[in-house]
């Protein structure tokens, strides 16, 4: 072999240089990874070891006008799991299922939640009962990624009595997460689902805090705190409302279980909503922490539709309660005064073309003035008044009164009332075809029937204009500066005349009893034909008191409630409860 020292020295030189070159390459690879790409890997290593555990913020407390609590937070517990993979999460959940009740569906749901946000703890139970929590705490060692923490839980002390306006909260759904409205939300968070909770979600939710825990490769929580500075949650600011909780409770009690419909009480000066109740109601407390499937099914299949808000969503023909709209439109146009009579006196009906339109009272009202017609609710008078106005003027006037508009009440999902649009001829052409209708539609419209479906809240709003100066304040549950809109312009004298006619007492000489009790109720009943069930009419009453200086406007609608006087009795009780005085209820009229 060639082992001459010179040869060896040459080979040794080559070998040494090769070694140096190899190590330089190796070292530069380390330089690249450790120095050049350091920030990337440092971040990855932090993400490896730290998990964000959200600290839910207590939602803002909701108060009534006397600072009584409508919605508050009580201590609760949430159970969640940290897992490195969805498979290990599933395995942990299956083991959990042997200790606490967990259905296969709930396990699937949790795994889906995990896949959306694998680095956040996956919520297993958002409202765990105390006994479950204590069992889990005992066996915590078996579930290394388990996180049990206190989570403020929404509680409504008055339950079903306030559900109609306060709504409820629930976990954000996958569909909601996909919408831009909830872009800043994360899976597992609670959001307002209905009512004020949803309307004022952005403010009520507060600001979620975050806690960092250190986990190892298997997702076991190694260190609870001190991994990094925690961010404390900020509670949502309180929401002060116009609601009078005592009145609200009273309204709910009046409806009890037997009645079905809705009622709203508004302060006509501010538009502040004093009470809002839709019957039957539901207990929002049972929705917290996940709505049990059978309850949800039961509520949705209930023919009385407890989840459907009959005050702001339901649309009903307003019947005679709308006659005051016809009167206001005609008076504003200068067509009539309160003392004017119509050409044909009421004999219990009115012949128009080849059709005979009945008055509600087959005995007839005789020759009445407008004031008398309002008092007596004479259909024949209003048929003629409607004809005098003509279709387009009646429709245009109705639109000006807001019969086509939402009130803008601060609740989600308010329905738009049904009413013809400004080009009434075209509206009816479209609806019934060019020859499918006649001017007879005016007769129906003028007495609040026909193509007219109003929400209870919209009728109440119209009556706040009657109760004041012709301008209506937007109904508002939360306390805001009043926002008024003028609906019609009548002189002070005319307004008082209408109110007097509505009170229907002065001319009939019963002012004495009213004077004794100090309060006069002005209002209008309505018995509206119901297209679905002709035998069972909807009973309406909209009114205010005291008639000379209204402090409360009440609208009551009873689905299939029969006669309007039933609604009036309820309204009267509501007013009595609010004013602490029994009003004179001389409700002699109907239509």
């Amino acid at each position, binding site marked *: 072999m060639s082992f001459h020292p010179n040869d060896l020295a040459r080979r040794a030189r080559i070998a040494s240089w090769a070694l140096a070159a190899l190590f330089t390459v*190796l*070292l530069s690879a*380390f*330089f690249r*990874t450790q120095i050049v790409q*350091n920030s990337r890997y*440092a971040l990855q*290593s932090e993400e490896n070891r730290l998990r964000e555990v959200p600290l839910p913020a207590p939602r803002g407390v909701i108060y009534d006008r006397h600072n009584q609590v409508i919605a508050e937070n009580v201590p609760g517990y949430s159970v969640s799991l940290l897992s490195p993979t969805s498979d290990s999460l599933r395995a942990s959940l299956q083991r959990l299922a042997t200790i606490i009740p967990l259905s296969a569906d709930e396990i699937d749901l949790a795994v889906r939640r995990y896949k959306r946000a694998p680095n956040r703890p996956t919520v297993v139970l958002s409202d765990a009962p105390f006994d479950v929590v204590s069992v889990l705490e005992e066996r915590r060692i078996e579930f290394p990624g388990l996180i049990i923490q206190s989570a403020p839980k929404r509680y409504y002390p008055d339950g079903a009595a306030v559900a109609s306006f306060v709504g409820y909260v629930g976990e954000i759904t996958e569909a909601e997460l996909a919408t831009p409205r909830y872009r800043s939300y994360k899976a597992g968070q609670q959001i307002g689902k209905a009512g004020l909770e949803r309307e004022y979600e952005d403010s009520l939710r507060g600001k979620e805090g975050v806690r960092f825990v250190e986990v190892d*490769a298997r997702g076991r929580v190694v260190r609870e705190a001190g991994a990094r500075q925690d961010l404390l949650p900020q509670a949502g600011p309180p929401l002060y409302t116009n609601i009078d909780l005592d009145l609200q409770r009273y309204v709910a009690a009046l409806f009890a279980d037997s009645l079905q419909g809705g009622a709203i009480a508004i302060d006509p000066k501010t538009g502040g909503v004093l009470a809002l109740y839709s019957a039957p109601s539901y207990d929002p407390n049972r929705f917290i922490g996940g709505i049990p499937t059978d309850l949800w099914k039961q509520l949705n299949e209930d023919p009385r539709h407890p989840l459907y808000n009959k005050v702001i969503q339901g649309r009903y023909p307003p019947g005679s309660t709308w006659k005051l709209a016809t009167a206001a439109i005609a008076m504003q146009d200068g067509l009539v005064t309160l003392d004017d009579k119509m050409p044909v006196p009421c004999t219990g009906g009115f012949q128009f073309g080849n059709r005979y339109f009945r008055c509600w009272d087959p005995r007839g009202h005789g020759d009445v003035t407008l004031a008398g017609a309002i008092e007596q609710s004479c259909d024949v008078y209003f048929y003629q008044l409607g004809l005098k106005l003509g279709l387009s003027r009646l429709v245009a006037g109705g639109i000006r009164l807001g019969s086509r508009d939402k009130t803008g009440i601060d609740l989600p999902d308010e329905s738009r009332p049904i009413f013809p649009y400004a080009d009434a001829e075209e509206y009816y052409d479209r609806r019934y075809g060019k020859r499918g209708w006649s001017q007879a539609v005016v007769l129906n419209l003028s007495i609040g029937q026909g193509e007219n479906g109003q929400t209870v809240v919209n009728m109440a709003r119209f009556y706040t204009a009657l109760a004041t100066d012709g301008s209506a304040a937007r109904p508002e549950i939360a306390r805001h500066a009043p926002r008024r809109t003028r609906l019609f312009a009548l002189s002070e004298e005319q307004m008082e005349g209408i109110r007097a006619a509505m009170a229907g007492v002065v001319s009939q000489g019963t002012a004495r009893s009213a004077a004794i009790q100090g309060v006069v109720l002005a209002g209008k009943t309505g018995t509206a034909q119901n297209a679905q069930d002709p035998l069972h009419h909807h009973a309406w009453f909209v009114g205010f008191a005291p008639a000379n200086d209204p402090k409360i406007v009440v609208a009551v609608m009873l689905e299939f409630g029969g006669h309007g006087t039933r609604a009036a009795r309820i309204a009267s009780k509501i007013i009595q409860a609010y004013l602490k005085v029994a009003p004179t209820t001389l409700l002699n009229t109907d239509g």
Partner: protein
Amino acid sequence: MRRVLTDFPLAFSALLLSLYGVAMVYSAGQTDVPTAALHAWVSQLKWLVLGIIAAWGVSRMSVRFIEWVSLPAYAFTLLLLAALLVIGTGAGTAASTKSWIAIGGVRLGQPSELAKVTVVLMLARVLAARREPPRSLLELWQPALIVGIPWLLIMMQPDLGTGIVFIGIFFAMLYWSGVPLPLLILLASPAVSLILAFNTSLWGAWFLLLLALVLWYKPFMLEGIGLMTANVVMGVVAPVLWERLAPYQRHRLLVFLDPSIDPRKSGWHVIQSQVAIGSGGWLGKGFLEGTQKRLAFLPEQHTDFIFAVVGEELGFIGVTVALSLFLFLLLRAVRVAERGNDSYSSLVAFGLAASWLVHVIVNVGMTLNLMPITGIPLPFFSYGGSFMLACWLAIGLLMRISSEGRGARVGELAI
């Protein structure tokens, strides 16, 4: 007495590396959830002491005695390796292999560690016996056989990592014995063709380069033709071979090329190792403070991936220090080889250095995904008794060779 500490820098750098290694094994045991590695450092320290004693013992043996013992030691190794295929057991992550020899359930060690030394000794003996370096590939049959038989036995365990080490030793010692570089390239060419076969243009370029080399170097006609044929066959066979690989084997290779295709399973080791090293920065997270290690994101942190702990906790500075020590040790070993008293000692020294080099490059490269994961340990660092002992036996040999070699400062530093 005889010269004992004859090559102080060599011994000192090995000692520094070993102590550095024990410290890292200690750190690797400090995890939040204790693992089997918790007390590994104690055992590692015991093996280090044992290794140093053994090195001292070896350094007292004459090189001639070592040369004489080479053949029986080699034969004994072959016997052990063959026996392993029947009685061998697995351990740890490689439970299905047959690398360990165990008596009554107690694992005694891995004979392949012994083989790394005895093959070097035997190969040195054969190569040193020749008067002229091999001029043709056919003349290489004897060295090829000496490495080939244990290589085959080890690949049957299977232990790819040790297999790679053998190939490294083989080529390095041929180079040191004076086999011309072109001949070595020709020898390695079929393997290169196999790898390049997946990219036709790359393989084409390689083939042309090879052709030029053959024309310039002019090996024997038959050998030249044979080699070119082998290259063509490899280039054509490789894709077919690929198709016949088991899916998991293909998967392993693909994950090596891109670990992110399977971040939770096969790619996990490499990704977490890179994250550990990359997050270390200049100075690291501090001794014992590595989060990747502490929280068990880093796998095999006290054995195969111990260098990732160095990178994470001591940063680029710690890596530079460790690699510099290795480079120094290797350069020193080359120096010993250069000054060897005879061709046998020279070859042994160079072979031992080559063995370490392959270990360092493959192991450290693996932590950065520059090399496939083969489970090859890092000398003086990775936890493992027989390997520590083998490394220090090699140090003892080098000390002896150095003391007999030219330029040894006789009398100085004598104890």
